[in-house]
Structure formats: C-alpha cells, structure tokens
C-alpha cells in the first residue's frame, strides 16, 4: 500500500510529462502566452509577466516570442510606467522578430512612447514615422487602424487638424469594426471643433453615438455635443442657470479660492475657510479631500489628477505633496524655499510649473523636482503674478495674470500662442478652459466672459443670481460652475 503511492505519482508525472512532451515547443509557448493573457484579464499582472518571460527565455525560436515581448513591453509601459524598459522590449520585437505578428504592434507602441514625450515638431514626426511603418510594412495587419488613429493623434498634437480628420475618417470608414473606429470617429468631431467647425463637429460626435452606441466614446460624445450646442446651436450661446443644481457643503463654501471638475465628475472646491480641498460627487455627496494651509489654486494634471496649490506646497493627487526651492543666489547659501505659491500645474511634457508671488514668476521644475528655470523663460522675463495655471488639453498652458488682467496661452516651450485682455477684462479673478480651447474668464464685476481660441468674445454669462464671480470651472458637458463669493454658493449654468 505505501509503495503504491510513489508509484502512482511517478506514473502520473510520467503521463503528464508524456503529454507535455507530445506538445511541440510552439504549442507549449502558445499555451504559456495564452495563459499569461488570461492572467492579465484577471488582473494578475505578476503571473502574467512571469509567463511572458518564460516564453522569451525558454522558447526563443517559437512564433510566440514576439507576442510575449509585446506584452512585456505593454506591462512596462502601462503598469510600471517604465518607458525605457518598454521601449527596449518593443525594439527587440522590431529588430529580431520583424516578421512576427507582433511586429506591427511593436511599431505602434514605439510610436505611442515617442508621441507621449513629443513636444517639438521633429519628435512628432518621429512618432508619425513609427506609425506609418505599420501600414507600409504590414498593410493587412489589424494594427493598421490603430496606427492610423495614432497618426491622427500626432497630427492633432501638431495642430494639423485637417490631416488628423482625414486619417480618423479613414479608420472610421474603412475599419468600422476595429476597436479604433469609435475613437477615430470621436476624434473627427474633436478635430472639427478645434478647427472652428462646430456644426460639423456636432454631426461627427453624433455619429459616434449612432454608429458606436455601446462604445466608451458614446458618453463623451454626448458631452461634447452638449457643450457645442450650448455655444453654437442657436443664434448665440445660451447659458441659463440650472435651478436643479444645489451644493450644500457648510464651511467648504466659504472663502472658496478655486474650483475644478475632475474627470470623475466630482467638483473639487478649495476653501480657505475649510483649509482644504474637498470633492463633491455628482450626487452632491462630500468625499475625502486634501487638507491644506492656505489653499490657493486647483488644477488637473495631464492624467486627470487633482493638483492643489497651497501657499507652501503643492499636492499632486492624494499622496504626493511637494515643496519647492530655487537655487541660492550666492554660492554656499541655502536653497531658497518657494513659500508663496499662487498656482501650480504639470505640463503635457511632465514639467511642474509653480507660480510664486515672491519672485513674481512661474518657476519650472522637472519631474524629480529639479529647478529648470523660469517659464516662459528667456523669451519673456517679465515679472508677473500668475494666480492660475491650467492646461487647455491641446498642449497649451493657460495662465491668468490678475494684476495685468490678462489670460495668456503658451506652448510647452514658452512660446505665446494667444492672449485675452487686458482689453475687455475689468477684474479677472479666475479662468477655465473647455475641450475646444474656449476660455471662460470670471470677471468679478461682470460675470463670466467666454472667448473663442481666436480671442473673440462669444458671450458674457451674467444673471441676477450671480453677484460676484470668484472661481469658475467647467464640467465635461461644458456647463459652467461659478462660485459666487457674496452669496457663498456655487451656481451652475447649463
């Protein structure tokens, strides 16, 4: 009896080995790859990565290696955020497995990596070249529509909206069943809106809902058409107070310094009275916020995290709180703290901008906190007290200079793209920007002005309910949220 069990185990393992041995290396590698993908779907990233690494190391001659490397690259890129490792994995695919099915995907992801850090025209062209390889070298690959859509993204980044529209149109028309089609259709609308063709843009956004009703883009498309219709659907923009909107938040609504609507739809209110920034969800429920001594401004990072600038530090999301210094003026002296922060933001390129009241400048830091100089830099060394910095979603950095009564939009390099004011602005106190780069400037004395990207005034939102605008924000559908300082309440204009 006792002898039988080891015998059975031996027989079983032999059987398993025999069965395994019957599988070819290709079959084994394929199975490991598929199992790894299964782990990914279950959220078991580590196990998935292990499987992929085994494929690469133990089955180097099989057809599955390329796909495994692709998955490894994606893991580094999307989970770890390690772009260098990701790029290395993708390059291994394109260089050593150029004929595999994974190669077009590798070019695609390389292009995405390049585009993510592209701030200059040559960098954008590099990304475009990566994407173009997919269609040229692998014309029947299912990666082609994704690459076309990514190319459109690159063109949009470069401000070439017509080219972006063209490429997205190709994806939407020629590959309607691909997973890039809905996004491409959405981007057509976006590009048209950005190129001042709002009615066409609305039609294209509506096509997202008509043709891809179940896609993740249907809801954003609804928000965009709402925003555009409000501005351009009638003879003139129509914002009307929303009587159904009401926020009850106690001290949070006292001495509000800033508002911002997060991608989740939560309205963040930075209140000096409450010494915190607090989120209020769509149902009106208060959530856990950030405490801050003397909160000054709110902004959103390129990834949608809330940035709370308070006098002495900046909080980036829930856990990251940083203070800043500038190098000492004299050798041997200590770095000088930045302790009169007015506003802060993270640029699309990853730089941190901090507006300092003392220095009357916007200070620029890299992601690790190293001081890089002033923004916009040598081109414009004027002293200014910028009380709001935010991104316009198209690579533009919007600043509000209350003293100069001006709102300016810069690119990442510090080049001035456009400005509004001081003509037309009396006492600007806050600014918001919508998805189409329209600027909403809260003017204490007047209400809220809406300027198009060309600087033309579209409308001024004012109503008897609004006594003194102090802070503004926009939700995803373009509805305006205004903090009335006198009434100590937030009004919504839909």
């Amino acid at each position, binding site marked *: 009896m006792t002898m039988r069990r080891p015998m059975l185990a031996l027989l079983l393992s032999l059987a398993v080995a025999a069965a395994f041995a019957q599988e070819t290396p290709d079959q084994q590698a394929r199975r490991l790859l598929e199992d790894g993908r299964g782990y990914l779907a279950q959220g078991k990233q580590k196990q998935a990565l292990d499987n992929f690494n085994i494929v690469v190391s133990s089955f180097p001659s099989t057809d599955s290696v390329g796909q495994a490397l692709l998955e490894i690259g994606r893991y580094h890129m999307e989970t770890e955020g390690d772009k260098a490792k990701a790029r290395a994995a993708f390059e291994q695919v394109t260089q050593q497995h150029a004929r595999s099915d994974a190669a077009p995907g590798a070019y695609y992801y390389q292009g995405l990596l390049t585009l993510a850090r592209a701030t200059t025209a040559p960098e954008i062209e590099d990304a475009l070249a990566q994407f173009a390889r997919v269609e040229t070298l692998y014309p029947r690959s299912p990666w082609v529509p994704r690459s076309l859509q990514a190319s459109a993204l690159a063109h949009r980044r470069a401000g070439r909206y017509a080219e972006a529209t063209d490429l997205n149109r190709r994806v939407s*028309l020629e590959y309607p*069943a691909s997973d890039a089609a809905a996004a491409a259709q959405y981007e057509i609308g976006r590009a048209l809106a950005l190129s001042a063709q709002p009615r066409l843009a609305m039609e294209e956004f509506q096509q997202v809902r008509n043709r891809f009703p179940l896609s993740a883009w249907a809801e954003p498309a609804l928000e965009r058409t709402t925003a555009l219709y409000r501005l351009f659907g*009638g003879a003139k923009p129509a914002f009307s107070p929303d009587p159904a909107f009401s926020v009850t938040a106690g001290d949070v609504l006292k001495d509000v310094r800033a508002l911002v609507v997060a991608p989740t739809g939560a309205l963040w209110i930075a209140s000096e009275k409450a010494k915190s920034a607090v989120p209020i969800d769509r149902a009106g429920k208060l959530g856990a916020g950030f405490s801050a001594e003397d909160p000054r401004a709110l902004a959103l990072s390129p990834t949608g995290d809330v940035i709370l600038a308070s006098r002495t530090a900046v909080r980036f999301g829930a856990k990251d709180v940083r203070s800043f210094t500038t190098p000492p003026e004299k050798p041997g002296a200590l770095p000088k703290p930045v302790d009169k922060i007015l506003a802060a933001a993270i640029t699309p390129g990853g730089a941190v901008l901090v507006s300092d009241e003392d220095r009357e400048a916007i200070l620029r830091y890299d992601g690790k906190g190293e001081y890089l100089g002033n923004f916009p830099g040598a081109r414009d060394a004027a002293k200014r007290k910028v009380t709001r910095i935010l991104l316009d979603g198209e690579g533009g950095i919007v600043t509000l200079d209350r003293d100069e009564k001006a709102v300016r939009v810069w690119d990442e390099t510090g080049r001035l793209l456009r400005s509004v004011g001081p003509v037309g602005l009396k006492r600007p106190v806050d600014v918001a920007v919508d998805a189409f780069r329209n600027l909403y400037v809260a003017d204490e004395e007047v209400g809220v002005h809406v300027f198009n990207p060309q600087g033309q005034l579209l409308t001024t939102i004012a109503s008897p309910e609004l006594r003194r605008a102090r802070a503004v924000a926009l939700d995803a559908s373009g509805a305006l949220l205004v903090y009335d300082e006198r009434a100590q309440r937030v009004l919504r204009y839909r």
Partner: protein
Amino acid sequence: MPTKTEATARFRTIVAPAAALLLLALRAGAQQAPELPAALQLEVQAAQDALARAVAEFDGAQQSRSIVVFDELIARLEALGPRALTRRGKEILAQAYEYRGRAYYGIGLPEKASDNFRQLVQLRPDHSLSKERVSPKVVELFDSVKRTLVGSIAVSSEPAGAQVTLVSPGGLRTDLGLTDFFPIEVLAGEYAVEVTRSGYRTETRAVSIAAEATETLAVPLVRVLASAFFVVEPTGVEIWVDGELRTTTAGSLSPELYEVARARGLDPARAAARVAIPNLSLGSHAIELRRPCYSGVKRTLETTEPQDYEVDPIRLEDSLGSLKLTSDPPGARILLNGEARGVTPAEIPEICSGKVRVEVKHAAGKFIKDLVLEKDEAVSLDCPIRPTLAFIGVEAASAGGLRHLADADARIQQNLAELRSLNFITAPREAVDRMLEQERLTRQSLVPGSGSDPDLVRKVTDRLASALEVQGFLVAVLPEERLQRTARLHLLAAGNSKAEAVDVTFAEAPAYAPLIKRLDALFASERPWSGLVTVDTLLHDGVPVLRVVPGSPAAQAGLALGDLVLAADGQPVKRTADLLAAVASRKAGDRLVLQVRGAAPGSQPRGVELTLGASAREIPLFDPDLVYNKVMMDLRAVVEGYPGTEAAAYARLNLAICAMHFSDYAGAHDYLQQAKAELPLRPGLSRGTALYYLGVALEKLGYRPQAVEAYRAAAEAKDATLIDNDGPAVAALAARRAGP
C-alpha cells in the same frame, strides 16, 4: 492449281485449327455469345467470298478445278455444325453442295454428284434445280435423289393462323409457318408436329412422312385464354392490365365503329384504332388507362370464359391546370419539367396536371420549385430569384483526409441545403474538372494561398458560372489534422478572385448554423430615410434638428434648423437613436408623424407629417460579420436583374467597395467606372461618391494624376456623401486628397 492432297494439307494445317477454335468459341457459352455473331459473320463472309471464287472456277475453263475449292468451303461450313450455321450459311452450304455435285457430274462422276445432291436435300429438302440454269440431266439426277428422301406435309388448324413447328427425333426444330398451308417438302421421317396459337393450348401430333408422300394434318385448337378489345379516345393511351403495361393505343378508328364510339360520347376522329389485349387469364383483371395530361380511368374486367371481350368505348378527360408566375426580377426564363415556356411574368394555361418542376432562371440566379398541379387548378406562384451556389467538391490536404472525403461531401451537402437565400447545388464534377483543366487549374487553385493568378481565377470563375448558370462556388478542404473533424469551406463569388474561408466541424449539424445565419443575412442596400440630422444633448428632452438635407422628406415637410423633435408617431423621442429607430422600422413611402417644437421661444408643439424616402447604403469596407463573396453574389444579382436602374448603379458602387475589401483595386476601378456613369448627380450617395472611391482606387493602383482628377471631380459634387445620405460630405475629403 493446288492438288487435292495439297488442299487437304492446307485444310489440316490452317483451316481445321481455325475452325476448331471457332467451334470452341461457339461452345464456350452464353457469356461469349456477343462475340460469336461477329466471328460467325466473319466466317460466313469468308465463306461467301470462297463461294464466289469457287463459282468463278466452276464457270471457268476447267470446271473440275472448282471441286477443290468447294471441298474447302464445304469442310469449313460443315465444321461449324448445323446448329451454328445461320440461314445464310446454310444457303452458301447448299449452293456449295449443288455446284460440287454439278461439277462431279461434269467430270463424269455421277455417284459423287448424287452424294452431294443427297447432302443438299438433307440440308434443304425444298431445294430445286432450275432447268433453265442447269442441265436437264443434272436436274433429273437431282430430282431422283430428292424423290427418295423427301415427302410433304400440310397442316391446317381451327382456327387458322397457328404456328407449326416440325420437331425431329434429334430435337431439331424447323418452323414450317402458319396454318393453313399447302404441302411443304420435308425430309422423310418420324416427326412431332407442334401447333401453337396465342390464347390456345399447344397441340402436338406425331407424324410419319414417307418419301414422295404427302401427310395432311388437321388440328383443332382449344382456346384457353381470353382477349379484350378496346376503343379509346384519344390516341397514345397506355393500357395497363394488372399493373403491367400491355399496349399503347395508336392509329385511327375504323369507320364501322364510329357509331359505337359516338354512342359512348367519343369523337371518332380523335379515337384510336381498336386494340386487342390477348392472352388474358380467366379471372378478374384491373384495367387502367393512362395518358399524361388526362385523367386516368380504371376498370375491372371479369374474364370468366376464354373468349373475346369487347370493352365499352372509353373517353379520357383532359386533366390540365394553369400557372401564373411572377419573379423578382422579372424577365426570367420559365421551364416547366425542362420545357421552355416563356418569361416572367406569365400566365401559362393547359399544363398537364401532376408533378411539375418549375424552374425560373435568370442571369441573377434562379428559382426552383416542385409542385403537384391538380386538374383545373390555377396556381399563382411568386418566384424570387436567388443566386445559386455550386458546391464543387471536397479536397484533402493530406493523405489522412482522403478517407473522410465522401463523408464530408455528404454532410456538407446535407447541411448547406438549409440555406434560404441561396440555391445550393452540386456542380457536375466532370464539367468543372474539364473547365479547370483547360486553364491548368485545380479546385485547390481557387482557394487562397494557392498562388493562382487572380485574373485567371476571375476569368475561370466567370466562365464556370456562365456554363453552370450559377453565381458562386464552394470548395471544401480537409486540412491536415490528427483527428479529421474540420472542413474549411471556401466561398468564392463568380468574377471574384479571393475566396473567404469558414471552418466547420463537418460532421456536426449545429456547427453549420452560424455560417448559414451569416450567409442568409441580407445586406440591406437601402434604408428608409428622412433627411433629418439631429443631435443628442443634455440640454433638451427631445432632439434638436442640426441639419435638414435639401430636397429630403424632412425639408419637404417644412422641418427647419433648431426645431426640437419630441415624439415620432406618438412615441417619445429622447435621443436620436429613438428617432432613427422609428424611421428604420418603416419603409420608404411610409408616413411618419413627428411632434415638433420650433426654435423660437414660446413655440408650441405641432405635428409634422413626412413621407419617408430611401437612402442607399454603402457596404462597410471591413465588417467581420459579412461574408463579402456572398454579398457580391447578391449585388451581382441586382446588377443582372435590374440593368439600367439606380438600384443596379448602387449595387455596382457596393461591388466596388467589396472589391476594395479584397484589395482588388483594379476590379473596383472597373465597377466604379460604370457606377459613376450611372449614378445620379444629387445630394447624398451619388455620382460624387463613386468619383471619390474611383480616386481612392486609382491612387492605390499608383495612378496619382488620374486619381487627382477623380478627386477634383468628386470635390465638385457639393452635396455628395459617403456611407449613406446622412454621411460625411465627399467634397471636403476629396479636396484634401486631391491636394493643392
């Protein structure tokens, strides 16, 4: 001249073995019989030739020389034996005996002559020599020999007309003819005489016939069977007795029977000649009269006595129905039971009742239905033309698959017979093989990956389609796998060059269901259309109108920019999808009532009635649910079925898109050249659409200047759209692609 010895030697060395061989062949049995007549014929022909040579010798200067030749000839024929000799052979032998006898007489050997004459008479007792041809002395000798051997027999019967057979003791049977006959010369001897007549008992008598004597026999016959006589109108009626076809009426009725026929309601001019059914056993017989296109008649005939029975004249009533056939598209050829009967739409009278195979054939496809038409029935049949898919067989990719070919073939045929939108037939293997071989192709050449020249595949499939009257082909391949379960079905439309493949577990019926569903799904090439473009917003309860297409039903109904659509036919419209669904649930020409509020402040809701139009639709360029080859078959059916119409023009546009799906830009170019000439110039999917795609195809083919020209032409079609009438405008896209 060869001597007798030499002739005998020759016989022994050549003729005898040959004759022996022939004899062996004759005795070999029935299975070799088909070869004997030919051999025998040759032998008789050779004998004929030999006779001619011998007679020539006989008539020559030295008559005696002919004896040797006759010897050979007679020996040859005698070797065959009396039973094998044909009538002609016997004639030749008889002549040979005669001539040899005469030759012997001529050289002064009367005994030899008598021997010959004896043999001659034994062979042909009724043989005689003509005094005009033969010397009287020879005739006399012959007659004297004959007198000693031959007697005569005369047979009569009651009734006459019986067959008389003389049977010798050795079993040799000789037919003497029909009674009553005059004396016939036969060899003297003992015989049995058989007298036979249909319907009568055979009588046998023993007779002894003496030489120079005449034996007379009178044989009364006893009737044992009945006969039935029929007069039937019309001619060509089959008469079945007890389930067996006995005769078919023909000819015309004899005048003396006219009155009898008329008395029974027959038209004598149409009646057939009176016909007899003999040899009916006594008892009850089921009689059935049949003729196509006539109602059958059944009778029971009681034959209690062995006599003639006159059946009352019978008139068959015609049994006809009619068919009214319509088809979509019209103008299809009608074949009823294989006979051409015009084109649809048609009303066809006087169709024989019974099983009718209705085939309605068109270049776009065909319709087939088997029905049973009753007498006087008028059937109306709508015959929707469907494309036909020809199954041209199963191939095995490996040796292991070969043993599953038959099973896979049968299963595929059985399961795909469930298709509704296609006729599914099995193509004749030989015809397909022949056509493929002409172009040095095989079935495998038609599947992707075979490396075949696409133009050649296109050409061959077009030819095959034309020859077989089909619109597409299906080839199945059993791939190499350990357990042979899968068949890869390759579907290829005629005129296309790339097949699409679907795998099925061929032995499992449910495995075919998804494929059948995909194939039977018809792409709707047009949809009901309002011309109203609305958007969804979070600002309204209804949907605001963003655009009204000029000239559209919505424009004609007075709808305007900024109107708010609140309801459609009483149903609330909260989103554009609700309005689109309301339109999609109707068809072109239907009315739709919208509740609408104007853009101006204080506007009251009002009802607006619009009559829906139709918008053509483009087929998506890449849709994994579509089987593009099947779609091409359907589209070609529209092109063939409705030539010169807008529907055909739009079908060509979609055929071009299908071709582009397969990266066949040359094919797309050809379709688009025609489409652009046929499509109207108007808002929506129209000529500008075709011009745009023509530019795309030319660009893909590398003809950039021509592509620019096409794009520019498309850009001038201001209101042309893509996708459908509500789709994106062509002008801007085309202008961009044309470049500066």
